[in-house]
């Protein structure tokens, strides 16, 4: 029996007077009782819009649902029920969890108040009964000391705990259908594992149906009974989970599955979507071997690198936060050192220290024998040129008021590369071609490009200075998996061509395994393990490394 039936759903957004965007183009799928259906797709596929339309949360001022569309919940069309009736359903029968727990919780109310609001409104509880039920809920979602936690504010909880509170609010009225929109995307991998286990347990206990929305196919393989793959507002394929992962029919599904770095092999290049869409299957690739022989010359060597931040507490006291505690590592010429760790582990701080963007508190960074941390800014200029960095967020790392030409010629101008503007522009055009963009893009502004293209521009900017060490700080993490594969290929090609060294930072263990010749694991500012990728993944020494590895989604696969 189906709890939810979506039929011919089409949603159109009005962007301005003349342009409209068809976000969802006539899709149909079912969510049976007590089962989990996953909507999978990359950004712009229409998966979140579909979820919002089920909740009746589409912005009324610019979204319109097609006339033939129907969303049947227990036989009633949610698109035609009245506002007050919908409000009764929302929260009580259909609940939703959002991606960002930090912005979904109201920062000025306590956790207990926010859970209590749901209970008051839908169940009419009050006083002691309400408090007891709230404690019960917090207990159920695995928050320690729930009695005390009821009176804290959201910012006093960690990201994982905030998401647990969100889940507690969602299940407060024992809904029949739970919609989870990328509930773990913003969380660390070990926390993601806990939340996934929690959701699976809750679903079983409460006999809920779940509509699980994600971009991560590996995650889906663990939780979903049925998978719906979406692209550009259309359904490419829907099948039972077991069948879809064993025998994907659609070329796009196959491409999505193949473009993630595999756990057991290391192809020279990752297949990309286009390979599949044109030929129906990916190219077969020879393998690449990774690792250090041990006799490579070191390009950079860090010893006892440390960084503390100070926060004022009260009038006189200061609190010290040790972001990095004595990290030592070396980066071999032409090789890649991968850094993995969760948020707050200090991996980004290490990158900023090496690039001299933050002042280190202690330690040394030897670059060709010279200690970079001991010299002043003027002396460091020539080294600055040789160490470049590509940041995580391509939307934030390019100056929105500069054209691509300005972005690319500025570093050359500062370092006196190229004789005149004409020459510099020609060089910039050449670099754009190298990173896979048309040279005509020079006159455009960053906002005219997609995320992947912007990251290519950021890479081109770093390349203008011909660096010997390129720091990639989560450079592919914010991108869709298919775009990620293209950029990893690009980075690999550039390393092969220019023999650059990489300091490759990521929370994504599969990507690091694919890219790195040596992997450094960080936790709470400390380096807990450094080893070759194959050895580290096959035979982790440190318990934390073992925990990280066991948290990678995709056990079933």
């Amino acid at each position, binding site marked *: 029996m189906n709890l939810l039936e979506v039929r011919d759903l089409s949603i159109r957004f009005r962007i301005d007077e003349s342009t409209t965007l068809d976000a969802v183009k006539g899709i149909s799928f079912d969510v049976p009782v007590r089962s989990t259906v996953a909507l999978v797709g990359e950004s712009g596929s229409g998966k979140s819009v579909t979820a919002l339309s089920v909740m009746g949360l589409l912005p009324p001022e610019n979204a319109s649902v097609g006339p033939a569309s129907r969303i049947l919940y227990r036989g009633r069309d949610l698109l035609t029920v009245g506002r007050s009736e919908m409000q009764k359903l929302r929260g009580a029968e259909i609940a939703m969890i959002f991606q960002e727990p930090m912005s979904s919780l109201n920062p000025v109310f306590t956790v207990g108040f926010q859970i209590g609001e749901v209970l008051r409104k839908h169940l009419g509880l009050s006083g002691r009964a309400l408090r007891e039920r709230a404690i019960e809920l917090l207990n159920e979602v695995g928050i320690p000391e729930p009695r005390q936690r009821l009176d804290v504010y959201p910012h006093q909880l960690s990201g994982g705990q905030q998401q647990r509170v969100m889940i507690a609010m969602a299940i407060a009225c024992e809904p029949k259908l739970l919609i989870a929109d990328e509930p773990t995307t913003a969380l660390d991998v070990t926390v993601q594992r806990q939340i996934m286990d929690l959701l699976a347990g809750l679903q079983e206990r409460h006999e809920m149906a779940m509509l699980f929305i994600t971009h991560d196919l590996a995650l889906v393989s663990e939780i979903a009974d049925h998978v719906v793959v979406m692209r550009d507002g259309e359904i490419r394929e829907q099948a039972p989970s077991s069948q879809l992962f064993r025998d994907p029919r659609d070329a796009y599904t196959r491409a999505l599955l193949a473009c993630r770095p595999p756990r057991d092999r290391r192809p020279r290049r990752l297949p990309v979507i286009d390979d599949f869409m044109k030929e129906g299957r990916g190219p077969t690739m020879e393998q690449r071997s990774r690792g250090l022989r041990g006799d490579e010359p070191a390009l950079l060597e860090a010893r006892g690198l440390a960084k503390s931040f100070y926060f004022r507490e009260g009038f006189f006291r200061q609190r010290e936060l040790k972001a990095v505690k004595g990290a030592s590592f070396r980066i071999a010429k032409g090789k890649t050192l991968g850094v993995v760790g969760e948020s707050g582990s200090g991996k980004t701080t290490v990158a*900023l220290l090496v*690039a001299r*963007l933050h002042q280190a508190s202690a330690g040394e960074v030897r670059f060709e024998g010279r200690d970079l941390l001991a010299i002043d800014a003027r002396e460091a*200029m020539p080294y*600055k*040129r040789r160490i*470049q*960095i590509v*940041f*995580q*967020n391509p*939307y*934030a*790392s*390019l*100056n*929105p*008021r500069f*054209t691509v030409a300005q972005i690319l010629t*500025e*570093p050359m101008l*500062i*370092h006196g590369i190229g004789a005149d503007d004409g020459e510099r522009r020609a060089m910039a055009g050449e670099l754009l071609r190298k990173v896979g963009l048309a040279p005509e893009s020079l*006159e*455009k*502004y960053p*906002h*005219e490009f997609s995320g992947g293209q912007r990251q290519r521009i*950021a890479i081109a*900017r*770093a390349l*203008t*200075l011909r660096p010997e060490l390129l720091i990639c700080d989560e450079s592919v993490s914010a991108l869709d998996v298919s775009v990620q594969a293209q950029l990893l290929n690009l980075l690999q090609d550039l390393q092969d061509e220019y023999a650059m060294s990489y300091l490759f930072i990521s929370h994504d263990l599969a990507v690091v395994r694919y890219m790195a010749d040596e992997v450094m694991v960080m936790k709470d500012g400390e380096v807990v393990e450094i080893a070759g990728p194959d050895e580290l993944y096959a035979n982790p020494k440190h318990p934390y490394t073992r925990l990280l590895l066991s948290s990678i989604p995709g056990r079933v696969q």
Partner: protein
Amino acid sequence: MRESSVWALAWRRFRRDRLGFFSLIVVLAYVALVLAVAAGWLARDWQQETGVSFAPPTFLGAEAGASESIKILEAAQPASDYGIPDPLGPDLAEIAKVLTGASPNEARALTLPLGADKWGRDVLKKAVKGTETSLFIGLAAAAVATFLGTLFGALAGYRGGRVDDSFNWLYSVLTSIPYLLLVLAVAAVINQKGVLTVILILGLTGWTGIFRLVRAEYMKHKVREYVLAADAIGASNARRMFVHILPNVSHVVLVQLSLHVVLFIKSEVILTFLGFGVGVDTVSWGSMLAEAGSELLLGKWWQLTAATVFMALLVTAFSLFTDAMRDALDPRLK
């Protein structure tokens, strides 16, 4: 097609706002008027006493208020006060005749388009000339204040630490004094009347609000990745502050500039009204309103009305234009 810069997009959004666009046209008309006056094409002879004293506006006819004003004029004749004719009267009349090149009562118009003031000067011409003074003061003072506020805000927000502390201290001192008191204090210290003085008074005291906003923007932007990226390619501090960050906060600065133009036009009026503004040889809306105070008692409302309408129209248009500009410049571009 290549016109896709942030400014071009903002302009496209602005044009869609009808009210804002209409306001812009009004503001531009005022600017054109000011340029024409500055070039000497208009209202050059505003000091000419072309009408009879308190000549009423043409649309009211010569009779309106005339009988009343004559009565008062007669009553105001010093000669009739004591029953003794003024012994110097004929001589003064002669001197006045020589100076103006015309006899005082000869060939004077009985009505003028918007009436005349006490000395018979054309109110329309005064208002036009006053527009030049007031708008110039508003623009120049706002430019000074915005320049100072932006510079100080950029330094304080970007540098932080001691620099920030000292600018904040200056800011706190200046804002802890009531605004009008501060303005009058500076005016009393400078003790010199004139357009330049008014600009300096307003500019030197009015930068605090802009400082606070720009400082906050710089604090927000200096930790953004594009600024870190500029650091990584070796851009100097000055380059990061003014080449990288400034264009990204310029929308704030522009909106503030335009808000302060309105504010300073009003402040000039208040200053002049209180007697600290422009000198007697200059006409501004403020000096017109200052004169209007006593005129109103005599029932001569046209100078007050002219100055008020001229000012209200500009201030309203400028405010609406600022609002539309703020909407258009909203940099939530993706």
